[in-house]
Structures are given as structure tokens and as C-alpha cells.
């Protein structure tokens, strides 16, 4: 089959998504590169993926569980509940920060080779996913320690992992594209991540939020994700708050649509601006 490529100003690639599929191999290669480089020249290597969430869990448990004496979800041990929140939060925040800086970190590729640029930010999420799986092993150990058995709900967990991925990639696409043009956004991300840890129900259960504010609170897409994680892992100690979940999914979908749209419009000028 002869391949014909037409290059024109402002031309929308008609088969952009097909092209994305053709370049899936590059996606694999970039994800694999990020993974193999991630813990090179570190002494304890992959242990970092275990230590960080573990320490965060300890601090949050002490502050919110011991000092502030907030209630847990049902009978679940407080540390377990916190950890079930940290898992998706770390996944989200790592994904968001890695993806947001991805274009700039790959400036040399962008200015020298063609490929659908969407590959770069999405490939970095694989790194976050692997870190997530590693820290998931801590959760299993903790559940064994507390002799806590999850219910059938655990089978739904992949759905919420996907939701966390979508929640991070949407805004990340927008920010990474803006980052190419205006480097200011590099400083926005650490702030969002730090701030988000406290406005999302990571260290506490979302049940402490007064009923009349619950829906508004769910505007933060991570509220739905974290609640979902706890529902799956803690075996439905507390029912899922459906309107809130729907709201979080809605916000995520909006950001995803918006992020992809903005990314696609700015994509063509990346090589000139980076």
C-alpha cells in the first residue's frame, strides 16, 4: 500500500487516531525507557516507591487519626483507610506531575522527530502505574496484618484505577501543552499536588464532610476516585455516594475532552516553541 502524506498549514490530521495506533511501538519504547531510567543510580532503587507512601501514611494517620481523632470508614482500621486513599492519590499526583513535564523533558525528541505527540504524556503514566502496583503490595501486607478480608467489591478496583488515570491525564495534557509555551506552569504542578493532598479525602474519610456539601466536594474528581478505592478495598464499609461519583466522573470527562482538545490545537507548534 502506498502511503501518501500531505503537509499543509492548519491541516487537521484526518487519521490522527490511526497514526497513534501505528506508533504504539514507540509508546512501549518510551514507557520502557522511563521505567528503566527511573531508579538508575539510586542506592535503594525501587524501595523509594514503597517508602514514600508508607511514610505519608504514617504522618497522615498520626495527624488525622490520632491528633484530630477523625472517624474511620466503619470498622476499618484507620491506617488501612488512609493507605487506601494514598494509593490512588500517589498514582494521580505522580501521573499528573510526570505527564505535565513530559514534553519539556523530551524536548530533544519533539524538535527532531515526528510522532503523534500525545504518546509522550500518556507513556509517562505507565511509570506511575508501576509505582502504584509496587505500593499495592504494601496494602496486601497491611491487610494481612490487620487480618482484613476484602469483599467482592475488590473486583471493581480496575475501573477506579482507570478513572484515576483519566482524571490525571486530562488536566496533564492541558498543562503539558501550556508548559511548552509558558514555563510558568512548571511551578503550578507541585503546588496543585501539595494542595490537593489536603483538599482530597486522603488523610480522612469523605464522610466527615457535612452532607449538604458532599456534592460540591465531589467537584474534585479525586473525591470520587478515592471513595471508590475505599469502597473496593474496605469491602463496602460505607456505601458509594452515587451523585458524588457521577459528578466526579463528569468533571473528569470534561477535563479529558478539554485537555485533548487543547493539546491537539497546540500540538503543531510544539517544535517551534519548545
Amino acid at each position: 500500500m502506498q502511503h501518501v502524506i500531505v503537509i499543509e498549514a492548519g491541516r487537521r490530521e484526518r487519521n490522527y487516531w490511526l497514526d497513534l495506533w501505528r506508533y504504539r511501538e514507540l509508546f512501549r519504547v518510551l514507557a520502557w525507557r522511563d521505567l528503566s531510567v527511573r531508579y538508575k543510580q539510586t542506592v535503594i532503587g525501587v524501595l523509594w516507591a514503597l517508602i514514600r507512601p508508607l511514610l505519608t501514611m504514617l504522618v497522615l494517620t498520626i495527624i488525622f487519626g490520632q491528633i484530630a481523632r477523625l472517624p474511620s470508614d466503619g470498622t476499618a482500621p484507620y491506617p488501612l483507610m488512609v493507605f487506601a486513599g494514598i494509593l490512588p492519590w500517589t498514582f494521580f499526583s505522580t501521573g499528573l506531575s510526570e505527564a505535565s513535564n513530559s514534553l519539556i523533558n523530551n524536548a530533544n525528541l519533539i524538535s527532531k522527530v515526528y510522532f503523534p505527540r500525545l504518546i509522550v504524556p500518556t507513556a509517562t503514566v505507565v511509570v506511575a502505574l508501576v509505582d502504584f502496583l509496587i505500593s499495592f503490595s504494601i496494602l496486601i501486607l497491611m491487610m494481612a496484618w490487620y487480618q482484613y478480608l476484602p469483599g467482592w467489591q475488590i473486583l471493581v478496583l480496575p475501573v477506579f484505577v482507570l478513572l484515576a488515570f483519566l482524571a490525571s491525564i486530562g488536566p496533564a495534557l492541558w498543562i503539558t501543552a501550556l508548559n511548552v509555551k509558558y514555563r510558568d506552569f512548571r511551578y503550578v504542578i507541585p503546588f496543585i499536588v501539595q494542595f490537593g493532598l489536603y483538599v482530597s479525602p486522603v488523610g480522612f474519610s469523605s464522610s466527615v464532610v457535612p452532607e449538604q456539601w458532599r456534592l460540591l466536594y465531589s467537584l474534585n474528581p479525586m473525591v470520587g476516585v478515592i471513595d471508590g478505592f475505599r469502597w473496593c478495598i474496605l469491602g463496602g464499609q460505607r456505601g458509594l455516594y452515587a451523585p458524588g461519583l457521577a459528578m466526579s466522573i463528569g468533571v473528569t470527562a470534561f477535563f479529558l475532552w478539554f485537555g485533548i482538545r487543547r493539546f491537539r490545537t497546540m500540538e503543531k507548534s510544539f517544535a517551534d516553541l519548545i
Partner: protein
Amino acid sequence: MPDAVITVESLSKSYLLGHRTGEQARYNHTLRDVIAREAHNFTRKAIDVFRGRQVVQGDEVEEFWALKNVSFEVKEGEVLGIIGRNGAGKSTLLKILSRITEPTNGRVVLQGRVASLLEVGTGFHPELTGRENIFLNGGVLGMTQREIRKKFDEIVSFAEVERFLDTPVKRYSSGMYVRLAFAVAAHLEPEILIIDEVLAVGDAEFQKKCLGKMDEVSRREGRTVLFVSHNMGAIASLCPNVIWLDHASLRGHGATRPIIDEYLAHKINLEPVVQLNRISRPHYFQDDRLRLESLEWLSSLPLRHGEPIKARIHFKTRASVADVGIGIGFSTLEGRRLLTYETDFPDGLRTSIPHPGVHSVDIEIDSLPLAPDVYDLDVGCRSGDSHPLDYIPSAISLEVIPGPNTPGHIVRKDAGVRLACKWDWKCKKK
């Protein structure tokens, strides 16, 4: 007659450039002036961000055409050379053809898969081993993992790095690095191959091997190749046809020999001040504290063999730089260096520049040893012995003409170095 594989129709590309007004006076402004100007700039940038436009540094914004109304066709299996001065638009053209950047106007139709090699070792990761980088680089250039595995041994033996396959490439010598990178690229199998000045690096023997490989690719396998180089020797031996870009426009298109001759005659620079800051560098170094700005001839042009030369190099620093050494070099048009002058040879004269600003250094050569011919001038500087700051190979071409003492009967084009030394005749007196 084979069909056109590449059709380029009135292709143009413009960029926005920012300038600072009153550049020279910039360092002795009062604080009030600085604040007023920064506030003005900030407002402009804020409006740009708001409207989603590009942020441009500086006070004035100028539109700059990197490529203007360029049209040509390339037939299947043709090897087309692209020549032109630095900044003439060659790289922009290749970037548009490789779909890295979008044209402002015009249209290109490409029939077939395109692979472009605009840089040696694109995407190489210093922490990864040679073996891993082969897969990474191959993937970046568009090879499937299966293709790479099939050609892996061939790539390794072409690069001659068998022993170091499992060493991170950050420990490679620069020669090994280039060999490995080119070896991967040489085994690509696209219908159209686009190659930018990648042979400028690497040792002569390997360059020859690469040229041979490229010749094989085009001649035996019938691929279409676009090849940019400053190396006229390589262009002449590889490409039957060339296009010549000059100031963003197409100046010539046709058989290689006559166009190269015309280009060389045209390329010779007789301007008393060479604006180095306008010339794009083949690679920018990470450390950009120092930029070469211009070269000013204090003695008259053209240069004469055996006569004194005086020149001043202006450069700008953004921050304090220690142990600055600056040098100029003369190379043949094939890119082989013939003559080098450096501030730190032989007395180790380097200087530290604590304050940002525009500075200059004067060079004085008592007697230019270059024999009459056309040469490329390279300018570069570094900090300490090996830390590069800025380097512009082939910044301009210069003609050296015979001086009053050059033996007149020698043919004019006779490149090389012709020096004075002591001779002692012992002749019989009857």
C-alpha cells in the same frame, strides 16, 4: 519517467523574533528605567498569554521568514543534495518535510514512508546501555522492535562497539557514540530518507563508511534521499542534483557541479563584520552563559597569504564565566581543519569574566600561513580546558588571495599551509 515522490509547492514558514531596543545601553540603565520596561514587557506578555499567542522576549516583535515560496520536485530514487549558508532555511525545510513543524503557507505531498535523521542519536539516553539505546533509538526513528532484532547484529558490527554493548552510553567516547547512532539510522528502511548534516561529527574513516552506506542505500535499494551538508565533497560524490537555498528562497536547482561552483563563488564573505549571533549553531550547548556575537575584521579583506591579520571577536555573557578560552580555525570546504588559533595556546591565556555584558577579544596574526584558496572559518569558545560554551563551525567562507611575497608562479588554488622557515643554500661558486 518515474513519478515525483516529493512535491513541494510554494512552501513558506515564518517565525516571530523578539528584539530589545537600546541593546548597548542595557547595562547602565537606572533602576526606574528597568522597572518601567519590565512592567511594559510584562503587560505585553500577559496579553499574549491571555490571547493564547506565543510569548516573545524583547521589546519589539519582528516577523522572520525562514523559508519563502520554495517549490521543487524529487523523483523516485533520486538523491538530492541541499546546499546553502547557515540560516538559509535548509533545516527549516527538512523540519517541515519530516512533519516536525508546520509550514505557514504552501503544500507538500510525500509518497511513501519518511524517516528523518536530523541529529545523530536522537533520543539516546545516557543512562541506558548501548544495547538498550539501539532499541530506543530504533523505536524513535520508526522501526519496529522485530525489525531491530532482525538487524541487531548488523547494526552492532557496523558500529564496531561489540565490547561495550552493556556499558551505559554516557561512558562511551564521542566517536563510539556517533558510530552507534549512525549505525542504527543507517539500517532504517523507509521510502524517503531525510538526512541533515550528521556526518560533520565522527572521524574521517567512519565518515567514509557512512557515505558508502548512504550511496548503497540510494543506488542499490532505490530509495529517495534528501541530503543536507556543508561538505561539498560529500555532496558532489553522492548527489547528481542539488537545490541551493539562499536567504529563505530557492536560488538554484539542477546538476550538482555548476551549482556548487556558483555557490562557492557566492558564499565568500567580504563583509567587514560577521554577525555570529544570526548564524544557527549545529548544536547548542547546555551552558549558554556565553554567546559569540560578531567577528569584526580590523585588517582589510580579502585576506592575503603571508600578510598580518587583525580581528576582534565580540561576545556577550549572561553571568560570570571562569577561564574563558576563545579560538578560531580555518577548515577546507570538506570540513577538515587546517589551522587553529586559540587564546590559551601556547601561554594558557584564559580569562575570567565576572560581570555580564558585551566584551571583546582581539586577535593578531603576524603572517597568515594559509595558501591561497577558499576556506571555512570556525569560531568557538570554552571554559577551562574542555567545557564547551559556544561553537560555530563554518561560520563563513573566506577566500585567501596571494600576498606580495607568495610565489607568483604557483597555481592559485593550492590549499594548505605555507610557512616561512630557515633555508641554507650551499652552492658551488665556480
